């Protein structure tokens, strides 16, 4: 069965990472690895990041040296809240059903 968990959704992982504050690419990789145990590849990271920026969910900040940090936009925060609320509801229902067996 294909992995449909949040850990297989790089966009969601990046939104969660940026909800903790602005980060550049390498910091996002380290953060995602620490809280989700997922090692995103560089192509996956920037593919997802460009998509999020294109959708207006994250925005780039000014360069810091050679690195460009990104931060969550208001739309990104709302989208993340919606996704997590939906996941939370599904998890709660799933746990309740598993607990009843």
């Amino acid at each position, binding site marked *: 069965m294909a992995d449909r968990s949040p850990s297989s959704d790089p966009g969601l992982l990046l939104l969660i990472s940026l909800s903790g504050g602005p980060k550049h690419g390498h910091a996002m990789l380290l953060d995602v690895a620490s809280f989700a145990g997922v090692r995103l590849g*560089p192509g996956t990271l920037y593919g997802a990041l*460009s998509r999020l920026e294109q959708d207006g969910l994250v925005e780039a900040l000014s360069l810091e040296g050679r690195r460009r940090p990104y931060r969550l936009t208001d739309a990104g925060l709302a989208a993340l809240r919606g996704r997590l609320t939906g996941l939370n509801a599904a998890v709660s229902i799933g746990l309740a059903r598993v607990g009843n067996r």
Partner: protein
Amino acid sequence: MNWILRLYPSAWRRRYGAELADLLEEMPATPATAADLIRGAFTLHMRAFLDRVAPRQVTAGGPPMPTHRLQRHPTTSALVAALIAAPTAVFVAVSFLAYQLELPGMQSWLQPFMDGLAQAPRIVDLYLLGAPFLAFLIAVLPLIGLRMERVNGELRVTLALRWRTLNLIVLAVCVLVGGFLVSHLIVEFLFERP
């Protein structure tokens, strides 16, 4: 491993290439990283293709990245269009030299080909006639940027045209060749048919 970045769409590379290259310097060069980069490039090309209908523009932060330029390759389209239209263009040019300008020796040189063409399947005629119009479409589409967006509940459609010299040259040839063919057919139909 930076050579893999050349596989990425050029507009995307201009926007994110330096950041990605910087990140690669901090990572070990492994086959898994290379595979991830190649997969990322492929995904971006596919995404660009699938997003063709609704181009959007990224302006936050770095330089603008007009995403619709990722989706279309005007030079490739122009070359494909030129290849498609080439047989008809050559046929029309040679016919014009032989039968309109009546260059010495051209008609006798061309006659065996014209006899063969008369015996050829109908599909050859259809191709020679339709190729300039098909090529015109292929060359012109990348020059048209159609943006459709909903603003305050209303559908807003904007049209942007781009200038690409190679495409315009191919378009001009297609118009000339197609125009010549159509006018020739009209004249033949109206005045030369028994």
